[in-house]
């Protein structure tokens, strides 16, 4: 079995502070991996290393067998294959929802305008915003903005999607609409790495659960089994607080 994504002996330090200490992870195509762990355990840093928004200090990251930490690799090409959605949405405020989704295909893929627009409208429909395409981010609710951000990431047709606490900045009543979009995406077969505090989502959608603490993967397995029967005392402690 070959893996779509392999993280091998990954280390990351900020100055003296070693945030990732030898992380290893393998993700199959179509797999949904949910990552949980206390604040500061390195979850965001792990995701950000995978698309090299942070430069790993040591280790390898293989995408489809190719080491993307290699200095000779065209990182812009690699990032087109890895979509990312952020906690703070980071939509482009000077562009409408439609323009946000169209921008990268237009400017990077050099897609023609009509094709880019058709794709963007299709994606905005998919995330349930077909009637909001000409609104600016400031005119949309947080949940709507985050769904535009998902559509924007999907527009580059990525092979993997990274989600970093994408519902944490949302009012509780807006969380479900975003999670529903992610569930649908998982059903469609997207490979996903999801950092989240939404244990319901982890249980229902996650193929695998990873618990991180202090820069290491402490425990991993089927979500339901870990929730029911966590083996590591640190996992037990974390889950007893959060569940």
């Amino acid at each position: 079995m070959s893996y779509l994504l392999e993280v091998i002996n990954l280390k990351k330090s900020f100055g003296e502070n070693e945030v990732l200490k030898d992380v290893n992870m393998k993700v199959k195509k179509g797999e949904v991996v949910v990552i949980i762990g206390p604040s500061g355990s390195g979850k965001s840093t792990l995701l950000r290393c995978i698309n090299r928004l942070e430069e790993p200090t040591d280790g390898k990251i293989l995408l489809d067998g190719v080491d993307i930490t290699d200095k000779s690799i065209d990182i812009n090409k690699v990032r087109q294959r890895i979509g990312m959605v952020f906690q703070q949405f980071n939509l482009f405020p000077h562009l409408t929802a439609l323009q946000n989704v169209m921008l990268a295909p237009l400017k990077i893929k050099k897609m023609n305008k009509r094709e880019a627009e058709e794709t963007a409208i299709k994606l905005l429909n998919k995330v349930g915003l077909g009637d909001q395409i000409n609104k600016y981010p400031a005119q949309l609710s947080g949940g709507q903005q985050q769904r535009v951000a998902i559509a924007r990431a999907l527009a580059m047709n990525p092979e993997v999607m990274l989600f970093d606490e994408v519902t944490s900045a949302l009012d509780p009543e807006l969380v479900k609409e975003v999670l529903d979009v992610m569930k649908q995406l998982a059903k469609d077969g997207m490979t996903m790495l999801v950092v989240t505090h939404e244990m319901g989502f982890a249980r229902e959608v996650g193929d695998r659960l990873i618990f991180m603490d202090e820069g290491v993967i402490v425990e991993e397995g089927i979500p339901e089994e870990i929730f029911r029967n966590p083996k590591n005392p640190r996992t037990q402690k974390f889950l007893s607080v959060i569940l």
Partner: protein
Amino acid sequence: MAGVGQFDIDLFVRILPDLAFGAFVTLELTSLSILFGLIIGTIAGLARVSKNPVFFGVSTLYVEIIRGTPLLVQILIIYFGLPAIGINLRPEPAGIIALSICSGAYIAEIVRAGIESIPTGQMEAARSLGMSYLQAMRYVIFPQAFRNILPALGNEFIALLKDSSLLSVISIVELTRVGRQIVNTTFNAWTPFLGVALFYLMMTIPLSRLVDYSQKRLGTYEVK
């Protein structure tokens, strides 16, 4: 010495065409200089936020030197100094070069502040989509930064327009020099210089109104 110290309406009417011509030259020199200044300032501003030590070092040195010396001295060096190393410029090109280099340094700092005013998440989102650094700057950071710095650029234009009066020392016949020439031939200082001031105001007041207006309009992105 009749007339000195009194406002002479007849004289004022007679010198209006000359003053208008001077104002036109001032506006022309300033506009050209701000245009070149924008190009220099954008490149230097980008270099000022660059991680490349050479770009950063050179641009920082440029900004420090220009901001640390009087514009008058810069003008004198370019017009009277450069011939010493074999570069002879006519007054107008020398003047435009001096004003462009000078405004470029101030604009560089405006551009730098504009880029830094955009949250880092914008650059990260753009890069995560696969844009290069320059693509992200061009399509995501600059359009937002430009809105934020438009009022500051307007103020820089006004400041440069007033500072261009210094070009009179290298015998460019702009508004201030026109005024001095008239004083020399009419022996009336009061009327021509008031006229000169009036013409500066006729240019700067509408400009600063425009700056105020743009500042109010540029608050949000919804209205378009």
